[in-house]
């Protein structure tokens, strides 16, 4: 059926000039320079390995925890270390392992699945990776100095606040999370734009591999789910470092605000982790049944539906905080509703299984293990969704059991299935079936032995996060059993890790498409190559390899799009979002050190900020800024001619301006993220207002209102100047363009100062009370955006002078314009909240 049989190599050098060009252009630099590489295949591989490293680290912490709890009143580990261990175990698993490794897998396989040569912004994903690596190592290292965070992975204030955690421990947490946020946002923008725009011709959304749908939902969930935490982080750091009282009851703050912000992120987070894993299941399962996934539309419905409803669950972590029962019940209702899409998915998987005869290879075993554990975890999930039941088991070991069933069952097992499944793409060899069975057996049995008893001991009344417990309550044997299980589970993981190293030399050669899968990523030889497909075919179904047996040969012969790299550039095709018609040949950047250097400066500035060395941090941020300017300066090259023959009788433009370009989408998505963080700030304002209604809002007299109005006018003027500057540039009026940019900058600067002035006139400082703190936060928000806007204005002016923005290419200007308007919108909204709302209320 296929011409490339197992063990057969690709044709030799020189036999095929197009192929040689591709190989040369996409080759990883040799030696140490190899780390300059920004291609998704290499970055994705490092990303996955790093994720697994943090998994092992957090796993070792878990073993230490279990060792301490093996017997009652054990003093193997001190309470200080224990509290750091369980905090870091949760933090590392959630933030440094679960989310990043899901991004990592997507970075690695998604472009291949979509027939793209890379993701839309390779340097951004590379930057995200290095930021994650540096930040993660820094956060983890705190454990070796005894400075690790110790207030639990959800860091409830006031325990994590300045009074009860005066050391730098909590700051390490805030830092570590800051990094994961940076890399998660980078990855999610990358993934969304990749899925929506970097698809092969003909692959309209109804023909995308199902994994792409899951990752699309994942991307949007990160964009809407992470901002509340970013804001919470900022507020807590402001309270810790500068005593702005957002959570301090004495000064009108409320500790529940933190819980809301945290869980506004924290619950979607669970699904942010679960959906990509479900995507792996929906990808691997059909291969081992050798039948298409049953109910593609149903599964898309489930993924999208889960994405929405999971944002309505956050308060179900706060049932015991004294919120009125009716409000709790809304969240209880949503928590029950979210079980429906999960049910649909499970039944789609079962229907797929029923459709054929499953092949019980290792990846399939992990999928079956997943089904078992996840269904059980889902059922206990429905139980804890019930308010009165949760009052009983909340913060007990029952919840510990539940969350591990959902997370290990729902995420780690599918992940391992994915590792076994896609490993041949990375190494060209298969992992051992025998060791695989052992690993699965140890992990599955070990998992259940560890966590099932926890349900019981939780119902018996053992609270979570205790470093020891008294004997004689009947908890002893359950705990000992759990400890034994934990070591079994760890042994299983060790077998997998051993084999993933060992099989690289000893495993059987995988050859072409070893599992006889149907999706595009298996169209490359194994191990896979950086450029992905030799040529990019037109796609007509979900499983092109199954449905079109001739595809393999024709793709290999280079009969489709982009069969070579004669321009000497790395390039890939961008298609339209819905119809998937090819629209542009995107030239991608070549290997560079810049992302790594930029990530280093980011890490360094965060790192010194922990120790409150603000000047050095500012300096390092300046270096970061220089990096980004250098990074961006080379974009928007002037290709001549601006058409390129992509094969199949089509020529496409290379450079385009306008809202359809991937860079514009990237900016827009970034602003969605930014805007959601801003909305979280507005939420905080209203929360503080409802939490202490008797608290007087500041009285603004006529004078402040006039200044506020002037501020609004200044911002609008700035935006208008920005709009006009785009027109001026398009008409080639360079002088006017520069002048308008100057007006834009001046108005924005004036606007920010006027806004601060309104609060100064009202005599409101940021530290006296929570109102002042929130209002000053809004001013800071505008201040920050205006500062960035000014940098952008200067940058656009400089590009204009250098002839890099002109009438033909002005995408940089369009992207900046979007940001400028956003700044204006945020400022106007803040002014309304600050000055108009108190008049109404």
């Amino acid at each position, binding site marked *: 059926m296929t011409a490339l049989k197992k063990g057969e190599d690709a044709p030799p050098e020189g036999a095929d000039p197009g192929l040689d060009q591709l190989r040369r252009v996409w080759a990883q630099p040799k030696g140490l320079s190899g780390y300059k590489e920004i291609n998704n295949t290499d970055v994705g591989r490092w990303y996955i390995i790093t994720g697994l490293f943090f998994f092992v680290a957090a796993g070792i912490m878990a073993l230490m925890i279990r060792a301490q709890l093996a017997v009652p009143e054990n003093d193997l580990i001190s309470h200080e270390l224990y509290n750091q261990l369980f905090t870091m175990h949760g933090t590392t698993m959630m933030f440094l392992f679960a989310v990043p490794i899901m991004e990592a897998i997507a970075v690695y396989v998604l472009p291949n699945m979509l027939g793209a040569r890379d993701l839309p912004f390779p340097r951004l994903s590379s930057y995200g990776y290095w930021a994650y690596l540096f930040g993660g190592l820094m956060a983890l290292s705190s454990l070796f100095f005894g400075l690790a965070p110790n207030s639990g992975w959800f860091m409830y204030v006031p325990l994590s606040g300045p009074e009860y955690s005066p050391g730098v421990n909590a700051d390490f947490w805030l830092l570590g999370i800051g990094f994961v946020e940076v890399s998660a946002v980078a990855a999610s923008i990358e993934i969304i734009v990749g899925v929506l725009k970097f698809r092969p011709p003909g692959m309209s959304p109804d023909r995308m591999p199902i994994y792409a749908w899951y990752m699309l939902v994942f991307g949007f969930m990160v964009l809407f789910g992470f901002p509340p935490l970013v804001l919470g982080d900022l507020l807590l750091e402001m309270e810790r470092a500068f005593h702005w009282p957002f959570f301090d009851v004495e000064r009108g703050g409320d500790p529940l605000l933190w819980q809301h912000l945290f869980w506004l992120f924290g619950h979607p987070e669970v699904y942010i982790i679960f959906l990509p894993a479900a995507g792996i299941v929906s990808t691997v399962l059909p291969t081992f049944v050798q039948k298409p996934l049953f109910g593609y539309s149903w599964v898309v419905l489930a993924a999208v539906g889960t994405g929405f409803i999971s944002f309505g669950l956050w308060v179900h972590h706060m049932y015991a905080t004294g919120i009125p029962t009716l409000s709790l019940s809304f969240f209880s209702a949503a928590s029950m509703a979210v079980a*429906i899409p999960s049910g649909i998915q499970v039944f789609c998987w079962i229907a797929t299984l029923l459709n054929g005869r499953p092949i019980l290879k290792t990846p399939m075993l992990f999928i079956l293990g997943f089904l078992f554990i996840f269904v059980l975890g889902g059922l206990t999930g429905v139980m804890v969704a019930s308010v009165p039941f949760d009052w009983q088991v909340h913060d007990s070991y029952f919840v510990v059991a539940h969350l591990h069933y959902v997370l290990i069952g729902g995420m780690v097992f599918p992940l391992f299935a994915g590792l076994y499944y896609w490993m041949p793409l990375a190494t060209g060899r298969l992992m051992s079936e025998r060791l695989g069975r052992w690993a699965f057996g140890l992990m599955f049995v070990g998992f259940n032995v560890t966590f099932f008893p926890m349900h019981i001991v939780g119902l018996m009344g053992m609270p979570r996060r205790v470093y020891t417990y008294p004997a004689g309550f009947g908890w002893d044997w359950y705990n000992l059993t759990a400890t034994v299980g934990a070591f079994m589970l760890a042994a299983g993981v060790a077998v997998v890790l051993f084999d993933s190293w060992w099989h690289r030399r000893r495993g059987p050669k995988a050859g072409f498409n070893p599992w006889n899968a149907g999706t595009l990523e298996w169209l490359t030889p194994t191990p896979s190559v950086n450029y992905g497909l030799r040529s990019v075919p037109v796609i007509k179904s979900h499983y092109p390899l199954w449905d079109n047996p001739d595809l393999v040969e024709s793709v290999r012969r280079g009969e489709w799009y982009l069969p070579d790299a004669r321009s000497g550039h790395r390039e890939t095709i961008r298609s339209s979002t819905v119809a998937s018609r090819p629209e542009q040949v995107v030239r991608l950047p070549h290997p560079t050190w810049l992302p790594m250097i930029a990530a280093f400066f980011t890490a360094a500035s965060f790192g010194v900020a922990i120790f409150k060395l603000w000047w050095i941090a500012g300096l390092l941020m300046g270096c970061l800024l220089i990096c980004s300017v250098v990074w961006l300066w080379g974009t928007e090259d002037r290709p001549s001619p601006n058409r390129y023959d992509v094969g199949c009788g089509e020529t496409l433009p290379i450079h385009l301006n306008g809202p359809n370009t991937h860079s514009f989408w990237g900016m827009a998505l970034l602003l969605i993220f930014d805007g959601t963080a801003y909305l979280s700030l507005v939420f905080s304002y209203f929360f503080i207002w409802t939490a202490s209604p008797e608290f007087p809002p500041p009285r603004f007299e006529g004078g402040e209102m006039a200044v506020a109005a002037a501020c609004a006018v200044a911002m609008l003027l700035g935006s208008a100047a920005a709009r006009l500057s785009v027109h001026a540039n398009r008409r080639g009026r360079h002088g006017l363009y520069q002048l308008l940019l100057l007006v834009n900058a001046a108005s924005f600067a004036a606007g920010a100062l006027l806004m601060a002035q309104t609060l100064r006139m009202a005599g409101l400082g940021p530290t006296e009370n929570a109102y002042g703190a929130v209002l000053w936060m809004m001013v800071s928000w505008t201040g920050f955006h205006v500062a960035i806007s000014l940098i952008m204005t200067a940058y656009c002016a400089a590009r204009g002078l250098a002839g890099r923005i002109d009438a033909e290419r002005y995408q940089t200007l369009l992207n900046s314009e979007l940001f400028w308007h956003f700044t204006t919108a945020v400022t106007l909204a803040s002014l309304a909240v600050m000055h108009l709302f108190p008049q109404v209320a």
Partner: protein
Amino acid sequence: MVLFTGGAVIFVAVMGLVLYALFADPDRTRRLTGDHLVLWGGLVFPAVTLAILLVYSISVSNAVTRPPAQDALRVEVIGHMWWWEVRYLDESGELEFVTANEIRAPVGRPVEVALTTADVIHSFWVPNLHGKMDLIPGHVNRIVFTPREAGVMRGQCAEFCGDQHAWMAFHFVAHEPAEFEEWLELQRRPAPEPPTPMLAAGREAFVAYGCGACHRVRGLEGADGDLGPDLTHVGSRPSIAAGRLDNTVGAFGGWIVSAQHLKPDNFMPSFEHLDGPTLRALAAWLESLE
């Protein structure tokens, strides 16, 4: 119980279906598959079951959060890093007396506990009595329950609250009404006079070593501190140091000498250099405070 049985049945049914898919003849299993399977199994069945569950769980929470009866016993509980201050109020809401790490109530009468905290967030939980409720700065949360039979139950802080979260327990004691009245009567009184010279020496040591700077003993000059638990009737409590130790003379001695070893980083220093006789007298006196 309904939850567990229902959950177990669903689990077994789903897993049965998976096993059937794995091992039965594909020609037969194929007939089962189809949109109807997903529609009924994945959508209709969960939607209906969950709706019923939702109605049921709302009615349960409605029942357990009903506002307290007029004659409820009113108790205030204040969480401290790592012990429980318990304040009894009379009908008019006036403070009657303060105790620590124990709550006592008569069988059959509703109890309304008002929960606040002196420092960080704690959570009040007696597993065999009622669900939990958090103690949050700036908030007063209430929990209402009615003990059904006499007995002692252990409760424990359920929200991580720092170093000694693991040792922040208390006891809930349900008495027959008459017994409870006796207990109330006893608690209202100041600490008893020491009947023997040795106990009197213990009391002197208590003042001399500055224990009174943190602990209050009603009726004792120089013992009016508010940082630690009120010790007026500490000898009558089910445990000491928030459930860390049983209430015995030996335990008192051990606690005084090595509080930092038994419960590291709690706010009570270890009095390691106390000489033997003083320590014995002090421990005996404390134990005698019934």
